[in-house]
């Protein structure tokens, strides 16, 4: 009998254990399910903010993208003296397809594009207010256009564009191979997104993209495509109506905790979030960098006239003694992506090219820029070369070098604008996983 009792207890124990089965249902504490994430208006707004954060990572607008554009196109104005091999491949115009900086830029940009697409796909749940829905749509389109614009400029080769995705992916069990779209298809999307964003976005939108951020980017896109008239009109509209003004000093435009008056759009960095990889590679250690991986060459420093604040906006690295730019001496400074100064230079160039002086004469726009930095004003005939040189001086080390070389048909370090070496290779990781992708010529 006694034994039966124990068997009874044991059976009871088994039953108690069975009751534990419901404890197998555990929910993660730090995350929410994908279904929940796209169900509510609040979460769509959250994904939108997540998209800014994604795009602002160091792989892309956190700095590596701008840095690569300058290393590729800076020629005599820039030198890489750091130990990293990947940026050295970039400055040598000898990028390998397994270059990590290139691969990370690609992956990060498409991750951000997918998030922007998820926002756009689920706008239906934003029901509180039409203007709220418009704002969210406008911001998502702005970010998507921004990302595609940099992808197409770096990876596009002739008609061969980049993979075009306009809907978000949440089911990754499908075949994800995708061909490269035509370059023109990418630009059509960019322009459509930006024109819509200009319509949808409010005039003021804190540090997020507003109507004028979209219009300014549109100006930049049209300039790249040689649509000077459209570029000039857009730039003029930003100058005339956005309310942005140049900072009183050149230095005031950089190393800011909060956007300066001339920041038409900037990626946000604080000590707690965001990334500033420009600081990492351009600054010395005392300023939060690695000591100065990228140096300002004598050739660049020699461009400036006496009294031009931009010609002394340098310092000697505390580690190496090399000349470094002062544009990135604050580790937690915002990253200006579109400054009003660029709009003046776009307007000047556009006016010169079209012969229609929109808003101001090119000479006035150039002198507006020069005056702010204490450079002597210029007079006489404005030439394309003058404007391009002014861009070098004003916008140096902000990610413009290669794009100006390519769009003007120039050359750098003996490589012509159309040299395949100036286009990035499709990353090896993409080549290895995407059976429909085609590599760029020369790789």
């Amino acid at each position, binding site marked *: 009998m006694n034994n039966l009792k124990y068997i009874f207890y044991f059976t009871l124990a088994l039953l108690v254990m069975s009751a534990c089965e419901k404890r197998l249902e555990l929910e993660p504490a730090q995350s929410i399910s994908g279904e929940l994430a796209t169900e509510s208006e609040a979460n769509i707004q959250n994904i939108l*903010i*997540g998209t800014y954060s994604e795009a602002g990572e160091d792989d892309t607008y956190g700095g590596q993208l701008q840095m690569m554009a300058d290393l590729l196109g800076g020629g005599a104005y820039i030198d890489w003296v750091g130990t990293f091999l990947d940026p050295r491949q970039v400055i*040598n115009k000898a990028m390998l397809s397994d270059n990590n900086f290139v691969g990370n830029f690609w992956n990060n940009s498409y991750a951000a594009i997918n998030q922007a697409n998820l926002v756009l796909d689920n706008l239906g749940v934003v029901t509180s207010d039409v203007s709220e829905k418009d704002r969210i749509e406008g911001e998502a389109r702005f970010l998507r256009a921004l990302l595609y614009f940099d992808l197409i400029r770096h990876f596009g080769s002739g008609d061969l564009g980049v993979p075009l995705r306009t809907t978000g992916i949440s089911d990754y069990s499908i075949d994800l191979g995708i061909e490269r779209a035509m370059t023109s298809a990418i630009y059509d999307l960019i322009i459509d997104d930006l024109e819509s964003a200009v319509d949808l976005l409010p005039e003021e939108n804190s540090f997020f993209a507003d109507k004028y951020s979209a219009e300014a980017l549109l100006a930049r896109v049209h300039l790249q495509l040689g649509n000077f008239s459209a570029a000039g009109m857009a730039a003029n509209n930003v100058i005339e109506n956005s309310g942005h003004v140049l900072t009183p000093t050149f230095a005031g435009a950089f190393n800011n905790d909060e956007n300066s008056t001339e920041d038409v759009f900037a990626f946000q960095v604080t000590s707690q979030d965001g990334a500033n990889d420009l600081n990492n590679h351009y600054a010395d250690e005392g300023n939060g960098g690695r000591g100065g991986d990228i140096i300002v060459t004598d050739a660049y420093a020699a461009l400036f006239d006496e009294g031009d604040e931009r010609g002394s906006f340098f310092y000697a690295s505390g580690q190496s003694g090399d000349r470094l730019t002062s544009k990135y001496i604050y580790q937690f400074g915002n990253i200006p992506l579109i400054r009003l100064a660029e709009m003046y230079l776009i307007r000047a160039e556009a006016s010169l090219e079209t012969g229609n002086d929109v808003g101001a004469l090119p000479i006035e726009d150039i002198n507006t820029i020069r005056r702010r930095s204490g450079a002597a004003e210029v007079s006489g005939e404005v030439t394309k070369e003058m404007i391009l040189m002014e861009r070098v001086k004003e916008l140096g080390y902000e990610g413009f070098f290669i794009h100006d070389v390519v769009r003007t048909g120039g050359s750098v370090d003996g490589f012509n604008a159309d040299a395949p070496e100036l286009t990035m290779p499709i990353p090896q990781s993409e080549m290895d996983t995407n059976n429909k992708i085609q590599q760029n010529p020369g790789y």
Partner: protein
Amino acid sequence: MKKLFTTLLLFAGIITYAQQTIRGNVVDEDGVALIGATVQVVGTTNGTITDLDGNFSLEVSADAEAIQISYTGYETQEVSLIGAESYDIVLSSASELLDEVIVIGYGSTSKRNLTDNVAKLSSKDIDKVPISNFQSTMSGKAAGVRVTQVNGKVDAGIVVRVRGAASISAGSEPLYVLDGVPLINQNESNNGAPMNPLLSLSPTEIESIDILKDASSAAIYGARGANGVVLITTKRGKIGKAKMSLNMSTGMSTPTNLVEWLNAEQYVELLTEAAENGRAFGGWPDEGFVEGRFDRYSNNTDWQNGVIDTDWNDVAFRTGRQSNVDFSVSGGDEKTIYYLGGAYNDTEGIILGNDLDRFSARTNLRHNFNSRFTAGLNLGYSKTTIDRVANDNAFVTPLQAIAQAPISPARLEDGTPFAGTVYPNFLLEQDFASYITQLRRLTGKGYAEYTILPSLKFNSDFGYDMSYQTEDQFRGSRTPFQSTNGFAYNSNAIQESYVFTNYLSFDKDVAPLHNVNFTLGTEFTQADRSFASVSGTQFPSDDFQTIASAAEITAGNGTETAYNFLSYFARAQYVFDGKYFIKGSIRRDGSSRFGSNRRFGTFPAGSVGWIISQEDFLNNNNTLSFLKLRASYGQLGNSEIGNFPSRFLFQGVSYNQRPGIQPTQPGNNDLTWETSTQLDIGLEFGLFRDRISGEVDYYTKNTEGLLFSVPLPGSSGATSINRNIGILENRGIELLLNTDNINSGGFSWTSSFNMANNVNEILALPNDDADIIFSQNINRVGQPVSAHYLPEYAGVDPENGDALYYINSEEGDPEATTNDIGEANRIVAGNPFPEWTAGLTNTFAYKGVTLSFTFMGEWGASIYNAGGRFQSANGDWFDNQTLDQLDRWQQPGDETMVPQARLGWGNGTGHSTRWLEEADFIRLRNLTLSYDLPSSLMQRVGMNSTQFYLSGINLLTFTDYPGYDPESRADSGNLTTGQAFYSAPAARTISFGVNINF
């Protein structure tokens, strides 16, 4: 007096009507008295134990027929009572381990009855090895069990592979079970390099380690058994007088090997030449550039004449030191046995700034309340404090200093670290920063055992394991890359798990010749982890080093996660006539880790055995004294797939301090455990009365439903997804041979040899067997896991000094080369894991002197030195170069493998087989020479034994590997399998100690 005696006699008479006293003496084969041997009247509970001289006396009833004498490690002997007053009994040591107790999970069995493949190590294999982690003591001792410490840091992670890697993406570490409690073995390091979580366990606490290698043995652990199971049994008391043991040792460590680098003169010569060549090649650098750099790196000293010539090896490495003290008291009587032990280990690593110290204590108690009910408590706790250095991929880790320019001083004259080195001087971190990890560990088990029938027992165990790890980092204002007036980071990681196990076990000879035993039980495991961290900057001065003084808190984190398992298990064995065995087991596991569609899994296994030598035709064979054939087959799971790997998840992010969310992981509801199906066929044999004994096993281990972090095209917005796809096979043979070579005239020589071959091959992959390529590794069908995948280096063009690579196109000339690495196709260039491993232990003993040493070796692995493109790159940049780079191409016609030096132009610096090296080696893993003072002398001074010993680890290494160490690998997470990257060599330690038993 007489009255008292009568009374006593009467009293005794009440219990037994007729008594007699027998006396005796118990010794071993060498005539040494056995203290604490159990002497028991057969068929009764009447018994005693032998005293210090091996003597006993026992009152026995007149009808007692025989006594039984037993002692651990010796054959139990029955002696008929023939009426003599005194019995001289000689116990012989247990014959060739056949009756050795093997722990098998929820029970134990004897080696003879075992139909599984289990490797056993005992404390004598473990103690005295001068190393602070217990896993390394297993190295070279068990066939098919490969133990590697990632590199020579004292806290470095440990990689244990039982019969090869059974997984690609999921965990491949075995399950560790300490006295029945599955141990938490999750790395909680936050500095980028994994730390060994089981460092908390002192090797001195361990009595034995049983490694369950095949399906039949490990299946009782179901979804957690696929990588093998390591069962650790801690020491317990033995019935007898209290035994006190004190062990002290101290030793010294040095790196096993150092690589040679250019000296100052050679460095200046190579770099000057590189600059000239660079200028000629591409117009860069300008004249004077290199000289300016030399001035800076040499702190403006006369580098032309080599005024400073720093050997950075001497700066990064030091002579380490190691001290151990452990003390234990153990003993007991028929009612209660106890073991109390404490240990202290203090290790200064061979790398500057890398130290460890550990206190640990253990109490194991067991009490018989009555003949049916026994309960006990095992409790161990420890605190380990580690001074850590940065991971291998950080400039400020000491090992990266090895490639600093030799013309740079390490320190200035006033002792402060020189800050103008090519890349940051790690001494700035060493002097002005600290990273201290403290690990507290509490592992305990309360248990009760109730004997329902002599053959039926019920066990209830409640186990608890807690690991509490804190990390405190401070980086002062003078450390490299520091611009925020100091930085501090604190983290707390608490992991707890409890396991509640209940099982019945039955063991009975149900009829003559028929034995049946079974185990039936349930188990519930719940594990939680909670993590919090905070970072702060802006300190008033470097004197303030805790977060409390940080003016700005820059980051904080708080996370919780959990998993649980609910399991039912059963095992049954039937033995006929002590020679035919059949066994089956099954476990059903459910876990929160598995996708909602696949929550429960069942894992069955079976085995059979036949002791052929007990058959009549072999029974009296003098040559073949033992022969057993066994086979097992079963399925196991691997649930080390993370806690919520199946879910499509978004997590919170912050942008300019506004909250947002981002997708972190694509989901897959069908995700589940990996299933590994294993077959093992083994033959155990003994020859010449077991003087030669051994085992040969053949196994296959097929893992299906491999968990893959399948790479996705980045253009989809995600770079990987978890999927159960693919098949991986490990197959191999294992040989174990124990020989008793000489045993005469007080001299003995025994050997133990093990050898294993493991062939690791991927049989199927996702997307129609498409290659999975990640960094410099590939998973390809027909190849081993994570094979090296690189362009093939072809040497140097004798005409112009360009690095050349084989094009390796499928059609084309196989000898065709190119100087454009982008044009060269990658090839599968090597296996990151060894194919053959072997270990040989020899033990010589003569009159108290014992010499024991273990050689072990590995063959077939290759290591890719990912640091090669910086440090062996023909002067491509200012990093110092290994000495072999002097052999660079200099003029047309030079035949060499080192390309022309061209500063900054990347001549031959792309990832290629140029830095892939074979890592075959044979190593004298450890050696112990001990001397026991004569026992006669010891007994005179009231001690049991005193032993002096000299013990060493990694004393000799035979290898052609040109890097630091053929066993060291990179510890930084973003470097992939089989790569070295400024990785520290293992330590060579020699230690002297004394072991005293009272």
